[in-house]
């Protein structure tokens, strides 16, 4: 066998191995972006989803003792109940957009393993941030003193 052929075969083996690894990696870790309407229409249990929507006002429940966080994500047409284990992340709240990663549970809710918070580099000043902030400062000063 010539050297040239050896290198050619070696290259082909590496390319095939890489192709296989990429193929296997994609099929095993693909995460599908869906909206609440889409997942309500055709939920597949066990498949990984990234579900984006608005946290419906009045739906957020957080129990610090059990670390159970439940809320509803909505896109205006459909609503999906979401359950998560863990404290609500910093950029999370009712009436705000959120993206959760997880899968569909057969008993009719979305089980989130991860809540993605968006950090923006230049952020917009929210119109009502001031009042909430002042109120919080007041109540904390009382608690701290």
């Amino acid at each position: 066998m010539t050297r040239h052929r050896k290198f050619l075969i070696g290259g082909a083996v590496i390319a095939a191995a890489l192709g296989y690894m990429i193929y296997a990696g994609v099929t095993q870790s693909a995460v599908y972006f869906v909206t609440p309407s889409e997942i309500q229409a055709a939920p597949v249990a066990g498949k990984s989803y990234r579900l984006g929507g608005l946290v419906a006002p009045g739906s957020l429940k957080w129990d610090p003792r059990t670390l159970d966080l439940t809320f509803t994500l909505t896109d205006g047409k459909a609503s999906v109940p979401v359950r998560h284990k863990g404290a609500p992340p910093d950029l999370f709240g009712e009436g705000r957009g959120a993206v959760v990663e997880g899968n569909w549970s057969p008993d009719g809710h979305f089980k989130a393993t991860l809540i993605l918070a968006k950090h923006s580099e230049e952020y917009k000043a929210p119109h009502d941030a001031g009042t909430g902030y002042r109120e919080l400062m007041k109540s904390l000063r009382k608690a701290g003193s």
Partner: protein
Amino acid sequence: MIPELGQAALVVALALALYGAFAAGISGARGTATLLQSAQHAAVGVFALLGGAFVLLTYAFLTFDFSVRYVASNTNLGTPFYYRITAVWGALEGSIILWGTMLAAYTVVVILTQRERAREFYPWVLAVMLGVLSFFLLVMTVAAPPFQRLSPVPPDGRGLNPLLEDTGMITHPVALYLGFTGFTVPFAFAIAALATGRVGEAWITLTRRWTIIAWYFLSLGLLIGGWWSYHVLGWGGYWAWDPVENAAFMPWLTGTALLHSVMIQERRRMLKLWNLALVILTFSLTLFGTFLTRSGIIASVHAFTQGAIGAFFLGFLALVVLGSLALLAWRWDALRSAGQLDSVVSRESVFLLNNVMLVAAAFTVFFGTVFPLLSEAVRGVKVSVGAPFFNQVNVPLFLSLIFLMGVGPLIAWRRASRENLRRNFVGPILVGVAAAALFWVLGVRSALAALSLALTVFVTATIVLDLARATRARLRAGESVPRAVGGLLVRHNRRYGGFIVHLGILVIALGVTGSQAWSVQTETTLRQGEVAQLAGYRIRFDGLAGNEASNHFRVVGSFTVTNGRATPAVMRPAKKFYPQESSPIAGVDYHLGLREDLYIVLGDFARDGSHATIKVQVNRLVSWIWIGGLILTLGTVLAILPERRRPA
């Protein structure tokens, strides 16, 4: 007045850069010395004007000139002094100015050092560098003008993104941009080589140091970015395979490949085409990264400002890629290798394999990053692949690369004899296998972790073996041990600098392995006085307090930590509330250690201070990643010192 001055400086700089690029190009083609002279002056002028504009923008930040939109968006009256300076490059417009200033500085250094040394390439190098500068100045004047006025002038600014109020964010962009812009120099030389038809070894010898410097700053930028992510973002990790991180990692991978492949061309006159292609690819990836992160086409946790700038970068990227390909095609006949591979078992072929692996890794990162776009275009569904994909595909590649890191420097050129292999590798392999057995006995049950550690030990053994052998030879010549080792490092600084960089990478690999394999975490809610336990630590919640800083208010939890070994310590994770932000920012508290870090994040809390939810992590060996960065620095410094030895 000041903003108009800055804007004018940028416009004049653009005109100068365009003129200089054409003048240098014409002088390259015709050999006109006077044109080259004036192009040089133009380049120095561009540097002065850009530097001046940068200073003016900084001045606007320091004086709270909120009539400038960019200043008003990224600072407010409460922003502390230091962060007012770093806020200058806290967002897009200022980043581009910083980028341009660095590129202009590199250009001036090229003028100072290469004018005589690289006479035949020099006009073209200057033309390319000024051409790239023209592009960035065009972006600054058209797409992202930093001095744009705001009307009416607000009484106070919006403030710097609280996440950027950190020393890591002062240095991270600076290092990263020094890396990105640094690759412009080898790229300019590659284009000059193609333009002049001198595609031999000369351009490689001239750019070796530049490539190392650019590579080093890129490495540093990645590491500082990891450190920032680790101690600021509060998720307990340092790398998330986020598109932004990937954007900087791809040119690092191809740049690393380049550092190795140029050695083959220097030594064996092979891979001319490959090396040129790698330089072009690396430079293109730095542009692609900026396009990716700034165009908003890929959703990222760091959502940057979107705008017309994406189209600018895409256009310029297309110009660079197509132009370079055309030049490669034009010089096709000159790019044939003078040497050829003699054997599959040789240093050349190991280096080649290293290159294939690195480029393959860059490709998988690229593929995974743009996968959502591909799948939407091809199948119409939005699908992304996350960290599991990148880990699954890259871990085997990186482990193979570590193995090759041990083999490459010791295996013989051309054709390795049985004797060469036996002499260099039997010992280290035995040490590696023994280490694997030892780790097993010590309780390492993860096969992947054991393999990674054993490979690390194997490579370390090859380095020690090489150094010991060379030292012994000098001892026989009658030198003392420190003299012998010192002499080796100085005389063969390039070889041993490379070895030390390898050691740095190994130490980083140790940190990554440890943190992936053995870190543990828990999340729990504690009432006052209650204790959480994790990995031998007892963490007692003592209470909450509120206090005020110049530009924010913070809620600080107080936790007493004991672990039976050391004296109890108090840790204070916080939540920071910025008036301009509608949600709080975590203030992580951590104790760093060589063995493990204790890392506490305050999640949720009751306003009366009666209970708090915390996330506790014990992250194993993470500190070694930062220590590896220091070792890498030492090795780089050694490798770029002037060579004392004549090349063999």
